[in-house]
């Protein structure tokens, strides 16, 4: 180290600013010779026995390598040390070898055996680094050895070594492309690797070796999507870019349907007179596509959705490259309505280093041309600061120009006005051009812009004036007849403007449009003729030009003047001017000798010149994949993979299916295939057939939950393969399946107690009835909400297949589709029967409990069942609360007394059903009773006042409530896990009432199912501040466990955790001599899903201990109070 620094000092001294390169040049005198000496002693040091000397020598050598000095003559001395024990020496030798082995291949071979030994080392780091160096030294002879080593390493136990193998693949490929086929085999093998460590590197290898072999990805597609979030950031970039290309070949264009809808709007957006032909073509194409789309409605492939969903969180990455990769993926693959999410993330990147800004702005510029709306809200983020580098300024300007439209143009122009005064003249010129483009694109401001630009003509800066004249010229060329006054104004300006370029441009304009200003133009020529000799050359040329044009149009007035000017020019010093004069005289002045050309002089000079097109340099750049080097350069870079067009018809999606264990395979895979096949037909007729079929799907899933738990597993398997629960990867599933299998029996045991304790009293019929009810009614409403969702998303995004919920709906549709096939009916009855059997079984096993069944428990049962169903990864929000019959036992609260309500009385209760439109909301069931003598109309909510963060889903307006009638409605409130009241006005057609709903803390949670072990584990994590313990003496009536359970569940919407020992909760065996049973209850808060765990441990003589564990301490404290009250009363 010290030597290297000494060396640097010396070098630092020698390399003055003037002659920086001498220090590096080995051929230059003194330093060269000193190098020689140094090499000798270096060799000596390398040969010594001391590691410290070797290390010192290697450090100095590496320092030479780093500075680009030639150290190749040390190769023999260095290579000997490759087997050195000291790890640092070894590493430095590796560094040296990689640098020089290519030049000295024969000598390099000496080191190979060491690496081969290293490949067998028990230490994975050594194995990996041996492979790394072996594959990096680029010696052609050892290709077979490398191949062998890579193959071996690809099946190494250590994922780190496998990663190194993946890195070695492109190295070998670049050394010997003939190994491609073998290497592809290795890639295929590594692609199947399940560790995140390998994923990025192998995809990189794939991209370098065989990017065209897209078929290798099929089987790994879902795995890659699911692993993505855990891959290291660089791997993420590569994988996302590859998957973008993959998706373009495998899925259908999600925007296929709206292209027609949007087209009208788009045309007005881009005042694109210039590319009308192109547009027409486009239109034809689009129309074609649209008709196709009509025939076959677009349904997003669940795999496509999976990709979009799993990449979205990466927009929050700290790595700009990852954010950009996701942004381009969304831009190229997402439905239009969803692309917007990337804007915020890209704007965030503008805070980063200027290089990042530069690249991001380039991409934003391209995006703004296609999707202007996306960035409009962020307009101000593109405002320019005087300290920005010029290249950033110009790009921001580009974006601002692209974003300009009728509504924001005034702010943009005001902003531009400040830019024009900038000291950075290149930037000013760019601003003027930007104004010109705004003026051409937005008709309304054309005149304003023109006037502004005309004022700029008096600017002192030549560049500014020249640029404005040029832009004005372009603008005038569009509609010259309208702007003769500006031409006149410019003609006046010629007295004041001294900048030759500007004078020349004005003269050209007057000449070109002399017919619009017939009176002024001869006068201008007169003036110019006077000053001709003093003008600059370009001005002189334009004077001649003007003279010629005037002569042709108005020879009467200007003949003499023209002659005069031409005579002056004839004797000019500049030969160009003399030539021009001679040429023009010949052309326009008819003489005997003049040829045929003079006849056409007028046509030659006054031909209609096409208006220049002012368009963004970023137009059409999006045919390059965004974020790529090629896009940035607007030219194809080597190795760039074209982004393919969407396929007309989607390739078979089943190629992405992965083998799953035998016993789940049959059920899930076949089902899916059916669905896929039927998809298009049924999604069409979904409207009518929805309700009945949805009943089926319920029976199906209910089946899964309530029958044998085996089917539970297969159920969940098939569900998540539908990619509904995209987060579960297939492998995980496999593993889980196995686990589940093991757990199966356990669960069965645990299940029983729950159900049984819940259904103690309910008779068979009741049970049946309830199930029927739940099965049919809620389902119906489910499909209603589904369509509701559709409407919503349609209105939001003018496009139906966009929303998350939509994709769920789609999946449901598919499910329905599959089941509504002819054999569906039997399936349905099957389901019922099975269920019946189930309940029979339940009740046969255990006799009805002696104590009377109370309805709160009843509802508790249903809701806990619901959560059980949810646990089976059914689509969330299964039951709609709308149809739950008001149950008298639920505690009702008064919302509006009938006296204050003038006859209208309103009560509400918490129905404890999941609120289907939004899982984060608590369902509130409201019962309206009209006690008045007249009808009440238009009952609805208004003026909702909430604490920040809270949200309300209003109940649908009740149009008519006849006198004496009662009706119910359901609304959802997201209380944000607080007991703050939701205030709103209840309006009838005549009156408004201020009311508020305040939830008891127990209603802010929903029950979840936990096993005892899980419960204890979770409890273990919620100790300390999160735990509240209270001692109490139980009420006398409340000493059997049933009442305890009942009271707790009435007080709070929790579900009971089945106890480890069966006897505890099975009533048939009457409460066993209690060794002080412990009752556990679990739930999650509705909004934040924080766990709420309640434990009631009974002791002798009615003493008990109540423990509440909850992350939200406030909720915990309040809950303790409530339960305490419930138990002691």
């Amino acid at each position, binding site marked *: 180290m010290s030597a290297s620094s000494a060396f640097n000092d010396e070098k630092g001294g020698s390399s003055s600013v003037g002659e920086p390169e001498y220090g590096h040049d080995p051929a230059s005198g003194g330093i060269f010779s000193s190098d020689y000496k140094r090499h000798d002693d270096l060799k000596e040091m390398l040969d010594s026995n001391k590691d410290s000397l070797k290390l010192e020598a290697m450090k100095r050598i590496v320092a030479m390598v780093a500075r680009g000095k030639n150290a190749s003559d040390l190769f023999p001395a260095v290579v000997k040390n490759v087997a050195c024990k000291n790890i640092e020496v070894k590493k430095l030798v590796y560094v040296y070898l990689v640098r020089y082995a290519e030049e000295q291949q024969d000598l390099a071979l000496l080191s190979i055996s060491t690496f081969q030994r290293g490949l067998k080392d028990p230490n994975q780091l050594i194995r990996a680094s041996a492979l790394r160096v072996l594959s990096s030294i680029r010696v052609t002879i050892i290709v077979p050895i490398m191949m062998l080593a890579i193959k071996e390493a690809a099946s190494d136990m250590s994922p780190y070594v496998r990663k190194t193998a993946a*890195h070695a693949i492109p190295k070998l490929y670049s050394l010997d492309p003939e190994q491609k086929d073998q290497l592809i085999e290795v890639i295929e093998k590594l692609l199947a690797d399940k560790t995140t460590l390998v994923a990025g590197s192998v995809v990189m290898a794939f991209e370098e070796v065989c990017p065209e072999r897209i078929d290798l990805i099929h089987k790994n597609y879902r795995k890659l999507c699911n692993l993505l979030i855990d891959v290291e950031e660089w791997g993420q970039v590569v994988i996302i870019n590859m998957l973008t290309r993959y998706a373009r070949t495998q899925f259908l264009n999600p925007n296929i349907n709206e292209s027609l809808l949007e087209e009208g709007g788009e045309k007005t957006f881009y005042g694109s007179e210039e590319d009308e032909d192109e547009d027409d073509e486009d239109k034809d194409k689009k129309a074609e596509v649209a008709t196709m789309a009509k025939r076959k409605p677009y349904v997003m492939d669940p795999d496509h959705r999976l990709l979009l969903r799993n990449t979205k969180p990466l927009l929050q990455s700290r790595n700009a490259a990852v954010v950009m990769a996701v942004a381009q993926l969304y831009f190229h693959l997402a439905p239009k309505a969803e692309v917007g999410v990337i804007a915020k993330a890209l704007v965030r990147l503008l805070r980063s*280093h200027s*290089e990042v800004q530069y690249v991001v702005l380039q991409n934003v510029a391209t995006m703004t041309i296609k999707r202007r709306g996306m960035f409009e809200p962020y307009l101000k983020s593109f405002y320019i600061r005087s300290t920005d580098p010029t290249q950033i300024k110009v790009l921001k300007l580009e974006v601002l120009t692209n974003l300009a439209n009728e509504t924001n143009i005034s702010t943009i122009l005001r902003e531009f006005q400040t830019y024009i005064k900038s000291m950075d003249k290149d930037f000013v010129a760019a601003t003027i051009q930007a104004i010109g483009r705004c003026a051409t694109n937005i008709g309304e401001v054309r005149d304003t812009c023109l006037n502004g630009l005309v004022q700029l003509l008096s600017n002192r800066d030549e560049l500014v004036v020249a640029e404005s004249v040029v832009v004005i010229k372009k603008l005038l060329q569009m509609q010259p007849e309208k702007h003769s006054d500006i031409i006149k104004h410019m003609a006046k300006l010629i007295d004041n403007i001294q900048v030759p370029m500007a004078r020349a441009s004005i003269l050209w304009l007057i000449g070109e449009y002399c017919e619009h200003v017939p009176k002024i133009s001869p006068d201008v020529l007169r003036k110019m003729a006077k000053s001709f000799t003093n003008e600059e050359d370009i001005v002189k040329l334009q004077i001649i030009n003007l003279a010629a044009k005037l002569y042709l149009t108005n020879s009467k007035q200007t003949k003499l003047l023209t002659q005069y000017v031409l005579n002056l020019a004839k004797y000019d010093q500049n030969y160009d001017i003399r030539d021009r004069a001679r040429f023009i005289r010949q052309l326009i002045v008819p003489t005997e000798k003049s040829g045929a050309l003079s006849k056409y002089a007028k046509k030659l000079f006054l031909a209609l010149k096409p208006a220049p097109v002012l368009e963004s340099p970023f137009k059409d750049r999006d045919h390059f994949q965004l974020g790529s*080097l090629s896009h940035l350069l607007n030219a194809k870079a080597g190795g760039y993979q074209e982004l393919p067009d969407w396929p007309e018809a989607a390739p078979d999606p089943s190629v992405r299916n992965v083998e799953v264990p035998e016993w789940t395979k049959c059920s899930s895979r076949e089902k899916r295939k059916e669905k896929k096949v039927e998809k298009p037909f049924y999604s069409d007729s979904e409207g009518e057939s929805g309700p009945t079929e949805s009943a089926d799907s319920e029976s199906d899933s209910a089946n899964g939950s309530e029958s044998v738990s085996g089917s539970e597993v297969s159920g969940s398997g098939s569900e998540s393969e539908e990619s509904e629960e995209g987060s579960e990867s297939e492998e995980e599933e496999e593993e889980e399946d196995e686990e589940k299998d093991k757990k199966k029996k356990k669960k069965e045991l645990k299940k029983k107690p729950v159900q049984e304790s819940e259904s103690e009293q309910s008779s068979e019929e009741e049970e049946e009835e309830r199930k029927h009810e739940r099965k049919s009614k809620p389902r119906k409403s489910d499909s209603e909400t589904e369509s509701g969702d559709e409407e919503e998303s349609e209105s939001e995004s003018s496009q139906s297949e966009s929303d998350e919920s939509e994709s769920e709906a789609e999946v449901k549709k598919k499910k329905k589709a599959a089941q509504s096939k002819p054999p569906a009916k039997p399936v349905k009855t099957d389901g019922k029967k099975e269920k019946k059997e189930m309940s029979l079984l339940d009740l046969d096993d255990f006799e009805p409990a002696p104590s009377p069944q109370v309805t709160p428990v009843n509802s508790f049962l249903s809701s806990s069942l619901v959560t059980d169903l949810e646990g089976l990864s059914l689509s969330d929000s299964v039951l709609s609360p709308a149809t739950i019959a008001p149950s008298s036992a639920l505690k009702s609260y008064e919302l509006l007394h009938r006296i204050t309500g003038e006859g209208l009385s309103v009560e509400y209760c918490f129905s404890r059903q999941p609120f289907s439109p939004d899982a984060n909301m608590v369902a509130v069931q409201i019962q309206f009773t009209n006690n008045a003598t007249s009808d009440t109309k238009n009952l609805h909510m208004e003026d909702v006042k909430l604490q920040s963060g809270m949200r309300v889903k209003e109940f649908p307006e009740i149009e008519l409530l006849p006198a004496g009638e009662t009706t119910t409605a359901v609304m959802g409130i997201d209380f944000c896990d607080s007991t703050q009241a939701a205030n709103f006005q209840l309006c009838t057609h005549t009156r408004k009432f201020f009311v508020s709903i305040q939830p008891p803390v127990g209603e802010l949670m929903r029950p979840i199912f936990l096993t005892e072990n899980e419960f204890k584990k979770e409890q273990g994590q919620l100790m300390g501040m999160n735990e509240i313990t209270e001692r109490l003496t139980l009420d006398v009536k409340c000493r059997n466990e049933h009442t305890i359970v009942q009271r707790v569940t009435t007080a709070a919407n929790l579900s009971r955790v089945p106890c480890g020992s069966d006897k505890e909760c099975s009533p048939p065996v009457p409460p066993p001599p209690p060794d002080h049973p412990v009752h556990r209850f679990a739930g999650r808060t509705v909004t934040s899903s924080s766990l709420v765990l309640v434990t009631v441990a009974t002791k002798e003589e009615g003493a008990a201990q109540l423990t509440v564990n909850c992350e939200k301490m406030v909720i915990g404290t309040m809950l303790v109070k409530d339960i305490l009250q419930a138990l002691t009363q």
Partner: protein
Amino acid sequence: MIHSLFLINHTGDIFLEKHWKSVISRGVCDYFLEVKEKAVEPENVPPVLQTPHHYLISIYRDKLFFLSVIQTEVPPLFVIEFLHRVADTFQDYFGECSESIIKDNVVTVYELLEEMLDNGFPLATESNILKEMIKPPTILRSVVNTLTGSSNVGDKLPTGQLSNIPWRRAAVKYTNNEAYFDVIEEIDAILDKSGMTVFAEIQGVIEACTRLSGMPDLTLSFMNPRLLDDVSFHPCVRFKRWESERVLSFIPPDGNFTLMTYHVSSQNLVAIPVYVKQNISFFETGSCGRLDITIGPKQTMGKMVEGLMVTVHMPKAVLSVNLTASQGNYTYDLATKVLVWDIGKLNPQKPPNLRGTLSVQSGAPRPEENPALDIKLKIQQLAISGLKVNRLDMYGEKYKPFKGVKYMTKAGKFQVRT
């Protein structure tokens, strides 16, 4: 991907080169140097250049150019982000990232570069992992190493590489366990001549320093997380948890790191802590101008404004200035034409003022634009957006760590147009 890396100082010397594939002659840098010569400011060198056979992607950091040579298609941001990561790593290892310090530690730099890229593809970029493989140089260690002959290079694969939390070292041990979080907010604003806000937003960052033993699992929650509009996280933050509960849950890396950056939702009005009254004018005749700047407190939330500094990039024609400052000192750099007025603490009773005359090169045209003022300031103990950390909990370890949260507000790109 990344073929070679050249480090070039601002005068154009290539003082380090590293190749990950075959060697590329340093002649390739000539294209870059040519462009650099033409660009007046180093910031104006385009980050991506095309040469006949290569593409050059460069960044400019701490007066050094990091120039990478690329041969095939690669996302430019990938390279740029990586180069910045390299610079960050140097900074992290050596305390600063300058030519002399890189030359002094050339071997460590080389070892680092070797670990960071393999065949041009990033390998280990997490500072915690790199530090396990190559120990940062300290005086003590170099002494110990020379005595004992041990080396700076680890011989074990860092456990982080293989785990799901590659950012954390294994077996961390401290006697004092502490975790500090700095909530730093920057106000980006453009004010127009009359002091009206053209554009203002708040960008925040939470810098963390954790020195905790074992595998602590931290949870950081905010009083008002809804203020946060757009966020980006260190990879350690569990995104799902944030989505559902607005809580930052993470197993932190060891040492310093940036936990998150955020943007405060734009609906909130941004409090501008100071007002600026300015009058800069150049006279038509007499080749001189006048400057008068006053800064006073506006919305400071009762806190002291410190580190106040005004920077003015004067027009090229301004030869010299003759000013008097009622508080603080001013300097005018004749070469770069930058006027810096370092005020220090803002006295609310007596707003600091800078006034005097500017002398303009005689004969030169009157400068057309008045220069913009860049303002720097600092307010301790205040997050201007009102963001507050609610609590920090630690799970997974038994000990009680010392926890601290600090707030600070700074001016980011704060510009006043004149």
